[in-house]
């Protein structure tokens, strides 16, 4: 199985490394397959760039930044113009996420509306569609790792192996998961400092845990992992009990010293 031809692509997008791996016999035999895969990977990166241009809170001209600016403008009427269909979709998903996590995931942060915690998984799921279709047709396995959140599919009984980083030492792993289809998302505070903010207090959530969630959708695995880290500030048992209530998703908490 490890003998199968395999290709990888990496680009730095949204301040994150985005790695794409494709594996399967068709990569070796078929020039047409190779160029179809190349085109689908290029489209994946291009779509992520387009979505970043629309949703980045770092770009002053993004649709999200313009929305935030209007909302915080003195004397603003708080009635933004008509959002694009994509922005409307993300606004809706943020509302659903807030409800599904009992408020632990909330895009309405003290600094303004920020859907970043949801947009990454959503954007990867959108952007991977052409690659998913091409690989399905050609019997190829594919995997996307966007800054530590992984979406994958393997066919013909094969699997991908996804290591889960040790929060105490990123060069080591807590374990590895053997998966055919779906998503693995991990949230915590290893690399970026305390980047998960508790919506209630506006302060960094507990930094002593890392949550990993498995499930069919990267968007929801990521949202649930983030929410579990927030909930763990009320105790690891609280977060574990909540993870157990999720349907179709399973999660694990790892403590960092």
């Amino acid at each position, binding site marked *: 199985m490890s003998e199968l031809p395999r290709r990888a692509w990496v680009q730095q997008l949204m301040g994150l*490394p985005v790695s794409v791996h494709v594996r399967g016999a068709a990569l070796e035999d078929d020039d047409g397959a190779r160029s179809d895969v190349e085109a689908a990977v290029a489209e994946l990166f291009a779509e992520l760039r387009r979505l970043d241009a629309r949703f980045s809170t770092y770009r002053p001209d993004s649709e999200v930044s313009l929305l935030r600016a209007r909302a915080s403008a003195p004397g603003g009427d708080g009635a933004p113009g008509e959002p694009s269909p994509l922005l409307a979709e993300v606004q809706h998903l943020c509302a659903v996420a807030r409800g599904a996590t009992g408020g632990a995931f909330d895009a309405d942060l003290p600094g303004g509306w920020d859907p970043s915690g949801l947009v990454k998984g959503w954007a990867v799921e959108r952007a991977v569609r052409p690659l998913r279709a091409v690989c399905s047709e050609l019997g190829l396995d594919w995997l996307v*790792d966007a800054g530590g959140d992984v979406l994958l599919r393997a066919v013909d009984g094969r699997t991908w192996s*996804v290591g889960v980083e040790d929060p105490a030492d990123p060069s080591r792993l807590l374990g590895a998961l053997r998966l055919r289809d779906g998503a693995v998302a991990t949230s915590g505070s290893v690399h970026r400092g305390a980047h998960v903010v508790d919506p209630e207090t506006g302060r960094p959530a507990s930094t002593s845990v890392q949550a990993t969630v498995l499930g069919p959708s990267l968007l929801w695995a990521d949202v649930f992992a983030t929410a579990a880290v927030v909930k763990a500030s009320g105790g690891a048992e609280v977060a574990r009990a909540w993870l157990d209530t999720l349907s179709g998703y399973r999660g694990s908490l790892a403590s960092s010293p």
Partner: protein
Amino acid sequence: MRRITLWVVSTLSALVLLLSYRTSTAGTGADEAAAQPAPGTTTSSASPSTSTGAGAEPSASAASEPPSSSSSSSSGTYTGQSADTRWGPVQVRITVTDGRITDVEAVEYPQENHHDVEINSWALPRLQQEVLAAQSAQVDAVSGATVTSDGYLTSLQSAIDQAHL
């Protein structure tokens, strides 16, 4: 430019450390020296060229593209000198646009496949159906709390990607 220089030095030091973790108990003197973190290189203190050892002394002055005049201090491409490691030469090139790292690339990278990782502990009890039983595993990807571009080259994911690029 100083900031960039220091970043490249600390990256190379960390990269050498990363490459060393697997066999850190069996190093020769020279490799041990290379695996020492370079004191001061992650702070704003001067003399980034000191104590990196074993050729890991990137001057980062060889910009392959001249920075644009409008933002000369925060944009450009910077290439460090090649550093010898046990696994072969490592040379790093980074691209900075408006102060953000937009690309990191290993110009040279050891050819040996070294993403065979020791499993540290057993902390995923709830995911046991999928957890590999081995004490070490060849992994295809790494899931971790949000990774950033500036940490990429020192990451395990980078090592995995490089083996298949």
